[in-house]
């Protein structure tokens, strides 16, 4: 039986990382999964929830539940942060006993971060990727601590042929993005990003890989500002690369 999934592309993913989304579809189909795309999706409400606007977040969450509630298929997303929002915070937005709460409970159980879906649902750790580059890995906070996924992305990357993984000092330390935090306290964000960038530069890797758009925007920007040619790439971009498709395809970041 063919697995079907609904793609939850997230607003940041859509605005800034279309090649990650294309890679996600390509890879899922390569693994025999059929993708559906609910066109009404916008934002899960996380930016509002994280800045305290719970009523606004609640409205967006309701829309999100309607959009993804139309199908019984599992929901897969390239963002640990947005999955964390759906899985954990939706339950807090709607009081127990309300229909939305019941719906959130049900949907939380079938919403997966991408690497989590591959490793724990498809039971795949080798996706047949080929990527002959030196990379280092940044553990995105909400993938790691929000969802408790410490090894999944590394297992998948470890099976990529040609890939050389260089350990990153301070791998599990936040890069300083933090959503609203990055613009409310830019100077602290700057200091945290500086530490992250220094650690990345010290690895000698060609790329740093992470699993959340927010980290990629922040770290990628930090590397560029530092005049470095090291690129920040999403785990999916590496996993989607094969010998036949010519490897990494992306914009100018």
């Amino acid at each position: 039986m063919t697995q079907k999934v609904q793609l939850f592309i997230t607003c940041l993913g859509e605005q800034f990382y279309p090649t990650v989304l294309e890679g996600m579809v390509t890879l899922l189909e390569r693994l025999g999964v059929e993708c559906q795309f609910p066109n009404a999706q916008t934002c899960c409400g996380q930016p509002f929830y994280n800045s305290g606007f719970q009523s606004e977040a609640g409205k967006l969450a309701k829309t999100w539940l309607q959009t993804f509630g139309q199908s019984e298929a599992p929901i897969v997303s390239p963002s640990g942060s947005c999955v964390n929002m759906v899985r954990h915070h939706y339950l807090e937005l709607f009081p127990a006993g309300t229909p939305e709460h019941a719906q959130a409970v049900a949907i939380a159980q079938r919403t997966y971060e991408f690497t989590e879906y591959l490793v724990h649902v498809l039971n795949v750790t080798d996706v047949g990727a080929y990527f002959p580059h030196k990379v280092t890995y940044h553990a995105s906070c909400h993938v790691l601590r929000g969802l408790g996924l410490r090894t999944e992305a590394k297992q998948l990357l470890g099976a990529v042929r040609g890939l050389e993984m260089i350990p990153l000092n301070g791998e599990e330390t936040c890069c300083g993005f933090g959503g609203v935090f990055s613009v409310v306290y830019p100077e602290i964000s700057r200091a945290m990003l500086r530490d992250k960038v220094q650690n990345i530069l010290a690895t000698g890797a060609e790329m740093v890989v992470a699993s959340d758009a927010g980290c990629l925007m922040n770290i990628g920007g930090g590397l560029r500002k530092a005049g470095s040619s090291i690129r920040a790439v999403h785990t999916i971009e590496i996993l989607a690369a094969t010998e036949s498709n010519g490897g990494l395809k992306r914009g100018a970041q």
Partner: protein
Amino acid sequence: MSERPTYIKFGEYTEHIPANIPAAVQQATGRFLDLYQTRVSEMPQWEELRQAASDIRLHTLENLDFYLEKMEQNVRAVGGQVHWTADAAQARATVLEIAKEHNVKTAVKVKSMATEEIGLNHALEAAGIQTYETDLGEFIIQLMGTGPSHIIVPAVHLKKEEVADLFTQKLGVKAPPDPVKLTAIARATLREKFLSAEMGISGGNFLVAETGTLVIVTNEGNGRMCTTMPDLHVAVVGVDKVVPDWETLTVLLKLLARSATGQKLSTYTAFISGPRRAAGENGPKEFHLVLLDNGRSKILEDPVARETLKCIRCGGCLNVCPVYKNVGGFAYGWFISGPIGAIFSPQILGTEAARELPFASSLCGACADVCPVKVPIPKILLHLRRRVVEGDQFAPPSAPVVVRTGAKLGAFVLGIPWLYRFGTRLLPIFTAPFRKDGWMPSLPAPANLWTKVRPFPAFRANFRQWWAKRTKRG
């Protein structure tokens, strides 16, 4: 210092952090963190212990009246006196009154967060009582005239050279930048104070209700000097510090030092059950326990934020926090700093005075991962952010109207799928003038808050078109 602030300017402080602070803080906290990790790796039952500790703390808080009354009874039973104080002013007045009754001229103090919280030192000095901090770190910051910048290492922001300069200047001795020699200077200065003081003042790490015992955890031995040499011992302790019995205390003690400094146990753990009972016994003639509420019972009314009070003040969340490590403790504007300060202060001082603090976090979650009693700090930060921007049953909103209007507008657009898709198509067009090699190096306000630190990626949404095309192709 540590007087109740009226408004904490966290953001303003972060714009001019003294350059030496992050380096000094990172050096010390990094060492603690390494040791902490070693300790955790030695204990396979660490997670079970944390859960047990969390359960113990929550159970005690939910039955706080019962355990506090038991504590009071048992302190009285061993000959001590108990004073209930509702706020900082009453707690200060109570201590001053006891001091006055005993004609106290000099007091020596054990490091205590509760007395920092109520600003006791200033009150004592104002009443003409010479007050000496005897913990080395506290001794240093008292000479500096500041409050603590870390829960357990109050002078963590200072390098040994700065301490040497301070001692040379304030103590009139030639102090070299050598920790051992500096400690010897402090010890010599304090020794005579221990001998002459009429009153010893402490806080308390725990109160064991079962036996009316005050528990003080220290590393320097000064705690024992302060609580045994003078004839009078006054302990100021928050009502949240009570534990049911010795068995539950053991669980918490196993976690405290390991989470704080990475020690298995701190050098001294003092158990004080009342004053001396017979001539020839050690200890003070009188023991007074001043129980401090100061807003804690109000926190208990809030079912989400209540878990703040589980905190056992180990400072572990500070040691691991990338924000704290880059700003230091003074940024948080009051006696308590770091992630726990960011949730404690707004609840005690009010969100009007401390509304910036709940936002002083990237929500990375590292604090919650190390907290030995599982205080869900990120969850409480979010809860308080909501209080700031939307208001709740405990406080009205205090965020500027413009911010609230902006958020409502943003959510409105995102809530209408066609409008969102329309906006998605417009963004790359409107932002084209700012684009350079796939990035936008500089953007007008308010987006410059981002671009002053790093460029913003170019808007390049085209997934929906890509998807539509390939679906059509079949």
